[in-house]
């Protein structure tokens, strides 16, 4: 069991119809997520990076079954077998909800303003009928202290609006972990926090991951955050993974032109160092009925005729554990 991945994603697609109505079938689609294949091992944390609108949040929400995929499957290992998330029966639904949780981006909007912290953190327990109310109270207190909200008794019966952003995100983490899930999707959990408290929250997430043996899918647009949090990184562009590999290798030796461009946009905190800026043209668009050619073709600095006439390149191992989707990147 230990060598098998916890999550297997195969051919995951999400298409949004653009037009169409009651009597007309939609003729064009926004390919928000288009054929993702990846695996996440036990205890590993995979970073999903990319620009706004590239489909990373949609992917995350499909993994926690907030959205139904249009095609493809997500498989979660429970015990010795895999359950197919998109085609789930009553019993495995329970297993699924106990094992998968999500941390949301906005700590202000992801909590019901009329519920106390106890009710918010205890909601997964209450909904899934775990323990009596006094057992739940102890468990919530235990997790609040675990995320650094001490003493728990002074936070339990307060409302979210009485807490700061950092404290709220700690509450959100406690809530996601209180049923001790195996897998947590973290959708930019630190992007709305002050830089000064960001590191604290990230460190907390790492500590808890180790302690409770949690596997993360960490969605972010910040490469520095991804470097800190993740063992592997997948770079997404217009619904496709263009490059995936171990964090250090990907960041120090990027192979895909888009990854190179992303990295060159990260500022270096030393004015004397000059880096070769990778220029890419234009802006990100939407993948509405994409042409059968490389998604990055219009903006790619190394494109040629082959890229134009052939469909989007498949992810291929190009050396050192890196998989890259590009015709022009040589195999090492």
């Amino acid at each position, binding site marked *: 069991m230990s060598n098998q991945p916890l999550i297997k994603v195969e051919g995951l697609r999400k298409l949004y119809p653009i037009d169409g109505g009651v009597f007309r079938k939609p003729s064009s689609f926004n390919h928000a997520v288009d054929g993702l294949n990846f695996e996440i091992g036990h205890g590993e944390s995979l970073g999903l990076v990319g620009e706004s609108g590239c489909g990373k949040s949609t992917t995350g*929400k499909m993994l*926690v*079954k*907030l959205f139904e995929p249009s095609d493809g499957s997500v498989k979660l290992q429970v015990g010795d077998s895999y359950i197919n998330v998109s085609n789930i029966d009553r019993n495995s639904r*329970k297993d699924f*909800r*106990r094992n*998968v*949780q*999500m941390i*949301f*981006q*906005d700590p202000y*909007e*992801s*909590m*019901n*303003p*009329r519920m*106390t912290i*106890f009710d918010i953190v205890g*909601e*997964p327990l209450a*909904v*899934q009928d775990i323990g*009596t*109310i*006094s*057992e*739940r*109270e*102890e*468990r919530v207190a*235990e997790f609040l202290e675990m995320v650094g909200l001490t003493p728990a008794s002074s936070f*339990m*019966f307060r409302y979210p609006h009485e807490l700061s952003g950092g404290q709220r995100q700690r509450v959100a983490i406690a*809530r996601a972990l209180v049923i001790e899930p195996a897998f947590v999707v973290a959708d930019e959990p630190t992007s709305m926090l002050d830089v000064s408290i960001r590191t604290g929250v990230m460190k907390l997430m790492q500590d808890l991951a180790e302690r409770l043996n949690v596997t993360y899918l960490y969605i972010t647009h910040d490469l520095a955050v991804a470097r800190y949090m993740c063992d592997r990184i997948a770079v997404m562009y217009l619904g496709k993974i263009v490059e995936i590999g171990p964090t250090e290798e990907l960041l120090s030796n990027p192979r895909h032109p888009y990854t190179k461009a992303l990295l060159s946009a990260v500022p270096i905190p030393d004015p004397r160092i000059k880096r070769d800026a990778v220029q890419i043209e234009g802006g990100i668009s939407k993948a509405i009925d994409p042409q059968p050619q490389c998604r990055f073709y219009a903006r790619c600095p190394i494109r040629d005729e082959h890229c134009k006439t052939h469909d989007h390149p498949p992810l291929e191992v190009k050396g050192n554990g890196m998989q890259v989707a590009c015709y022009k990147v040589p195999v090492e």
Partner: protein
Amino acid sequence: MTNSSSNRSNGGSSVWQARWALFRKSAAANWALFAENPVGLIGLGIILFFLLLVILHPILLNTVWDPNVYNPINGFDPQSPVNPAPPSARHLLGTAPQGQDILSQLMFSARNEFILAVLAATVTVTMTTTLGAIAAYYGGVIDNVIMRIVDLVIMVPALSILIVVSGLFELSIVQLALVIGLISAFGASTVVIKSQALSIKVKPYIEAARVAGGGDFHIIFRHLLPNLMPIALLYMMFSVTGAIFSEAVLAFLGLLEVDMSWGIMLNTTRNLGFILDFSNRWYLIFPAGLSITLLSSAFYLVGRALDEIVNPRLRQR
């Protein structure tokens, strides 16, 4: 989870204690806001005044007032054979055309008005919030069916429906309350509450609840409804006004099978031809008419004051 269980394992009562304390705290805070508003206090004062009349009436009948003389429905005073009679020491608001004491009628009717108002408003509010929440949450066909019924009911004036219904069936006050409640449940407030529910439905905490494992029922009753409650309470106050007014109109038109109400008092006055003689027979018209106006505007005023608590933007800074 082990060492501290001994002092806390009393069936979660500490949780309920904490909740009770929170509830009291928020109630106190809301009362403080409400008390700042003279409009709301005036409304509340009027409502309390009429409640007092309701409570006093049976007490008076059992102590000071002779039941034969002061019975609101068939009482008759042998000492004042000419009816209607203007106010006197014996009959503070005069007597009705058939000899009943008007003050007693007024006090007795107040009870009916409260039963009607509270029942109709409760039915309305329960149904509008549930319908609005369900329409917003499920969308699609369910939403369409509910909202088209609402459109239909808004289009046809409620009063004409009421007149038809009370013409077909002899309605008691409780039945009338249910009918009024049902009709206003498919009224404009459902549209407002649905739009509110739509804005709550897209909040991330709804998604968070779903990830936590909450089903539709949990999300509607634990997340949507509590957040709709303030605005629903507001519409409850406004629908009370509508219920009292509708009852008065129906009774005045003689379409109601009720032993006594303010509308019936006016109806009797009209039937016996006193309604146009305001200068001489004001005591037949004034008490009932003023009571209808006062009580329905009192609920409206309380509603306005609640509005300012619910929507802080309306508050004066």
